[in-house]
């Protein structure tokens, strides 16, 4: 899986992209990912544990994320920490590039701003 090109994962589903963006360069546990994601997007309940762990399980098997030891040992042993792999970050970049080109197109067509209320 890990030797696949980043483009072969595109387009990403919203949870996968969300997890990769949230993780960025850091290692986080599941609860942390959910709280961070909510804080960044302002949407409460946008990522629920069922979907998150389903997504994480798949991303682990695809090599997009990996489990790392807790940064501060001795905390809650149930908490496991995850970090994006190089592949995962490259996939996120490729997805961002894809979205950027779409956004450019949207702006050219005057569809890039806020929806009008009329």
């Amino acid at each position, binding site marked *: 899986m890990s030797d696949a090109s980043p483009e072969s994962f595109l387009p990403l589903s919203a949870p996968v992209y969300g997890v990769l963006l949230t993780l960025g360069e850091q290692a986080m546990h*599941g*609860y942390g990912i959910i709280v961070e994601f909510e804080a960044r997007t302002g949407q409460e309940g946008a990522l*629920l*544990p*069922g979907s998150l762990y*389903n997504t994480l*399980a798949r991303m682990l098997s695809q090599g997009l994320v990996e489990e790392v030891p807790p940064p501060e040992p001795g905390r809650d042993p149930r908490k*496991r920490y995850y970090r994006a792999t190089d592949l995962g970050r490259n996939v996120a970049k490729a997805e961002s590039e894809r979205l950027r080109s779409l956004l450019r197109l949207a702006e050219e067509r005057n569809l890039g701003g806020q929806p009008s209320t009329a």
Partner: protein
Amino acid sequence: MIVDPSTRPGSSDPERLGSLAVRVYRLCLFAFPRGVRRAHGREMLAVFEALVARRRRKAGAFRAAFFAIRMWIDALSEGWVARIRLRDDGRRGRMLDDLWTDLRHSIRALAKSPVHAFVLVVTLALGVGATTAIFSLLYGVLYTPLPYDDPGELVSVVHRATNVEGVAPRGPGGTDLVDYMDGVPSIDGLGGVQTLETNLNDDDGAARVVMGWTTPDFFQVIGVQASLGRVLRADDWAGADRARMEDPDFTPPPMAVLLSHGLWARRFGEDPDVLGRTLRLNGQAMNVVGVLPPSFRLHMRADAEISPDVDAWALMPVPLIDAGRGLSGLTVIGRLADGATLDRARAEMEGLLEELTAAHEVHARLGTVVEVDPLHDQVVGPAKALLWPLFGAVSLLLLIACVNVANLLLVRASAREREFAVRAALGVGRARVVRQLLTESLVVALLGTGAGVVLALLAVDGLVGLGPANLPRLEAVSLEGSVLWISVVASVMVAVTFGLAPALTSARVSGQSLLSTRGVGTVGPAGVQLRRWLIVGELAVSVVLVAGAGLLVRSFAQLRAVDLGVDPESVVAVDVAVPFFSYRDDATRSAFFVQLAERAQTISGVKAAGVTARLPLEPGSGGTWNAPYAPVGEVIEAEDAPRARYRSMTPGAMEALGLRFREGRGFVAADEQPGDLVSVVVDSGLAGRYWPDGAVGQSLEIRVAGYTGQPSTVQARVVGVTEPARFTSVAEADEPTIYVPYHQFTPVDGTLVLRSDRDAAEIAAEVRSIVGSLDGSVPVFSVRTFGAVVDGATAEARHALWLMGAFAVTALILAAVGLYGVISTLALQRTREIGVRLALGAVGGDIARMIGVDGVRLVVPGLLAGLVLAFLASPLLRALLYQVEPVDPATLGVTVIVLGTVGLVASLLPAARAARMDPVEALREE
């Protein structure tokens, strides 16, 4: 309820509710595949807990509870998503291995009791096969849209003469039709068709073909295109008015002819260059303009005298406007205009007919009403009377089959309970046992339904091949996938449910307890009770089927016992047709047929021979006519003048048909000589009405139709009186009948009837040589025996009887098998009790009685419930019965006796076996 902790600090409620929510979430996590659950389950629980707590802090307990519910749902749905993904991803190998092991076990288990397996498979196959076949027939015949353009827009249009008894509804008269074509906005077009047999002559010789004569727009109305060339259209008309057609010196110009695919293949070997070639049909030159697609058939009202397979088509030579008002020989269809409704079309037509009635006396005299109905309803309507009861019967059969399968599986499960108890004791997991039984049930179900599918395929072919002549649209019948699936799914569900239910029961019981009770209770009272109910239900349903078959047997016997008034034994019939244009003159035509009859009488071994226009009990009424008559002193033109069916016959024809004379005589050669007074023979019904003291010698006025000319009224004298005969239907008495000499009405085609004990083919050969010596261009065809024609007339009743009888017998066998199964298991379960009783001095008779009573307790309620069901179902059969009431005490009585006997025998066999039991053996059994 969830309480906000901020209002009740220190309360334990939120924690308790929180922990409840966590426990529910833990259950929800079982939706995930084991791998995910093991890797992340604890984490997920922790995250869930933390998120609920956080939400409670931020938004209160109420919101937190909703949030928890959202997360439960999220876990359940995500779990299934993960499972599906996992199943798609592989790990199939292990599952396949397990399945293979289960399959091998199942087949071994089934092979251990082959009779049981065989009965199960056959029962399922019968249920699935019969239901699918009959439903396919029903669906194909009743619900396949007609193969025409927008068939839902097609309507059938008839005129009914309400003032005249005994006249079937027919197409509107040609002149009326022209008025309808112009005056009804809701109808886009009207077309009429009439089919007649005619002679075809070309370089390959003479043949008999069915000719379809249509109005100019018929093919545009019906919406059918030619597969080669084009269909007929209005500018093909090359006819002439009536007067010119009857002029012996007039030779009509060549007409356009459209060929059926069949005739094109037979006569032209599918030659694509056929367009423009010339055929001679009935002496008239016709140019081929097109060929119809192979699938084209004429589907018209069921009671129309139309042949569905027409060989060649041409426009009617006589213009419609000349064809008169009232009722015609045409079968008429119309097409609703875009957006028009049937009701509006009806109303408009009725309105127009009112105007026509005010303007034309004929409509007032006939009491003409116009009927507009969807064509499809009219085509298939009468078939419903046969098909729905059959479908009802076959559904009951499927029900019985399913009950039997359930029953057999329950019996078997109780017999194997110890086997499973042992396996449980040896540590085989419950899931494994359940899966094993499930596989067994599935194997049986698949074998049974597989055989059922094969049976259904064969049965559909057989049913179509049996081809009950009165069923329309048989060409549209094929194996109907949807019902096949329904019956397969029903059978598989029954097999799986009942194969599994006892397994779940037994799997629930611990091996220890089952082994210690040593199988006395088997599946327990509930299981036995269920089987008893199944058997009672099965018997009840069997009563309905057997009673239905019994009614049809009685009805068929009544039908065969009808006095036809003719004697169909040892009678051969052959058809002979002369070409119209060389025999246009009435006298020439009748001379030919009278001479043919005379010569036929000289064939050795022929006792009597004569020509008539139509053999009794063959479909159609061509060559006969319904018209008024009047004894001398009454007026034939009177509105209430009595009407009779007129049939023309040469001397010898009545004797050949076996008509019995009450007084007087049949026609003799002298009656064929034209004179002022026409000799007629009447039937006793008509004679008794006017001349109870003897009709011979009495005078009357009759209305002769005229094959080419106008109808005319002539004076007649009665020379003989016959017993009433059944010409039109076995079931219904004919209209009063007047027989007239053949010269009074001589169609171009006649049926030569010969009474002889000789072989039909030999007779036909001699007839051919006689016809050849009279006129080499005249074909002889349709050699048949009168007996076969009579058989054909009762074919519908016979087919219904065969099918229903087959279902009833199957039901009876299934019910007997089911009953036998239950009583034997009951006896087996009481083996120990029997042993004890025998040891205490009971004799075999007591034991037999004890077990027999078990049977009676099932049979009696089953029969009673069946009688109630049969009573409720009886109206369904009414349309199929002849002179038998749907609730017929005699039939029901016999049914009860038959089923009661079968039931008793099925329960006495195990009872007798129990009585012969050795007490020591019986006790050791435990």
